């Protein structure tokens, strides 16, 4: 009798467990096919030479050796690094000061918040083509086609008119600025949410102690916001290093060599049917990103404990 009851209970239990498993089956199946399997494929393909069809030839780490000697690849990393540096300073300083401004008692707060998040909502293709037109340096019947050059002409700075997007010296900066225009809204909203968690009494205390706005910001706000700032910094680095779609839509062909970034290199290897090499590039690039973001993360954790 006792045994029978035990078996029944076990059956019910395992039946429950089985039925509960059904809840996660769709997610797990899709995730395995489209994420986990390709994830391991990435590593195995990076050790092979493969042209998309035909046999995969195992070549060990030769793809990686080739990659480390590939000057264009490291140049593309440099370009992405440059864009990231500008984004980190311009975009985040802008986002932080906007968040500070909106955190105070000020009218139209909701309106500003609404507007600053409109650029991030647009797709990179739309932003790229739109800014291609703004920064265009072509002329039509003696009139500047691009809005920005046109503006410079009419406000009395004709000497500043420049072919922004076709000069290799300015094109990367233009990409970085447009990228920051599109991206600062994310930082702004995350930082603002963080600022609003700070206890107002701390500001009161600082004021009673005679601290001005600048000192309050330096000694109260920034130390308290450090974890949130770190999150924004990591997100900015990941987003800017992987910038890609913006580039072909902003800069039309012609300057390809000067605007290479890692993702365009991976795509180029792929369309050249060097799948193994493309995967090796992806592995190296991904590892660098993971290493950077984990270093920053542990750095910020250590700061939190100190």
């Amino acid at each position: 009798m006792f045994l029978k009851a035990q078996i029944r209970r076990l059956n019910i239990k395992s039946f429950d467990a089985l039925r509960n498993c059904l809840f996660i089956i769709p997610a797990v199946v899709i995730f395995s096919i489209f994420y986990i399997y390709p994830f391991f494929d990435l590593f195995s393909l990076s050790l092979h030479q493969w042209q998309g069809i035909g046999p995969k030839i195992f070549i060990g780490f030769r793809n990686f050796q080739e990659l480390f000697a590939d000057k264009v690849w490291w140049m593309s990393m440099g370009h992405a690094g440059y864009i990231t540096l500008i984004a980190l300073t311009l975009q985040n300083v802008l986002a932080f000061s906007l968040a500070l401004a909106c955190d105070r008692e000020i009218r139209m707060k909701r309106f500003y918040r609404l507007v600053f998040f409109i650029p991030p909502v647009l797709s990179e293709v739309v932003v790229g083509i739109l800014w291609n037109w703004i920064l265009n340096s072509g002329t039509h019947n003696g009139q500047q086609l691009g809005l920005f050059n046109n503006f410079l002409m009419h406000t009395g700075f004709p000497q500043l008119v420049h072919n922004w997007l076709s000069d290799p010296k300015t094109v990367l900066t233009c990409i970085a600025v447009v990228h920051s225009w599109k991206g600062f809204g994310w930082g702004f909203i995350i930082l603002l949410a963080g600022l609003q968690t700070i206890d107002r009494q701390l500001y009161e205390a600082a004021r009673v102690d005679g601290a001005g706005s600048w000192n309050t910001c330096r000694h109260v706000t920034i130390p308290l916001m450090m974890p949130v700032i770190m999150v924004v910094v990591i997100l900015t680095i990941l987003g800017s290093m992987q910038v890609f779609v913006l580039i072909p839509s902003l800069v039309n062909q012609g300057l390809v060599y000067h605007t290479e970034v890692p993702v365009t290199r991976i795509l180029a290897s792929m369309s050249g049917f060097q799948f193994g090499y493309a995967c090796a590039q992806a592995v190296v690039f991904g590892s660098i990103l993971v290493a950077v973001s984990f270093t920053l993360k542990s750095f910020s954790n250590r700061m939190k404990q100190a």
Partner: protein
Amino acid sequence: MVVNQYLIQRFLKNTLTHIFLLIITISCLFPIFWMIRVSFMSNATVFADQSLIPVELNWHNYVVVWTKGNFGVYFINSMIYTISAVTGIVLISSLAAFAFSRLQFPGKNAIFYVFVAAMMIPLPGSFVPLFVRMNELHLVNTRLGYILCMINVGLSLSIFLLKTFFDKMPADLENAARIDGCSPVQIWWYIALPLAAPALAVIVIYNALNVWNEYILAALLFSDNSLMPLQPGLMVFNGAYQVDYPVLMAGLTMTAIPIIIVYLFMQKYIIKDLFSGAVVG
């Protein structure tokens, strides 16, 4: 006197802040406003007409974009992909998140951590093996293939957000329903989902944005113009209408406006919920 000085100082500070905020506001809105303005002009009037609001609304560009530019097809495709992928993500991720939060089964935590880890690890270039996989499964150039890919992209973040939400849900309601004889599926459908409406709103808008604006996978998977969504379609169009700015701007407007409208309607959820989650996590 002292009070006066204080008031003047505060007034000055507020004015300066407003000027700063307004400059950035203009820099955000002006390009978009100009894009819409030019989309109603013709190549002849785009230089002649200097007024802020165009003299006449000329819908001709939109007709060109919709028919010759193939945007009728792209637009419908984008709608199909966005609606199906978001529906799929909501159903599949809420089922999984409910199980991770409320039900018992072997390996629960381990599987959940795999999803969370996937959310944290950046995988640039994962499209290479993914494309290879899709090719083997004969899912290249199919609607189903793209929709499944996009469901996968949104899955881990949605599961994570919903699980944290379900964890905070009071157990009493669920227990009452169980005593009344509800099965877990019924609890999920009748109790958990309606209660999770705010979290679901975040997931809907975040993923709708993501799918509508996605470019790389769509460009890789579709070589067939009749299946393409708007973003790669816009790139094709950009190549063909390089200098015809009014028509090009009509295409951009058509791509951007639907997502801006969705954002304006649902923005209160984004700002309140998604980012309070981001800061805590």
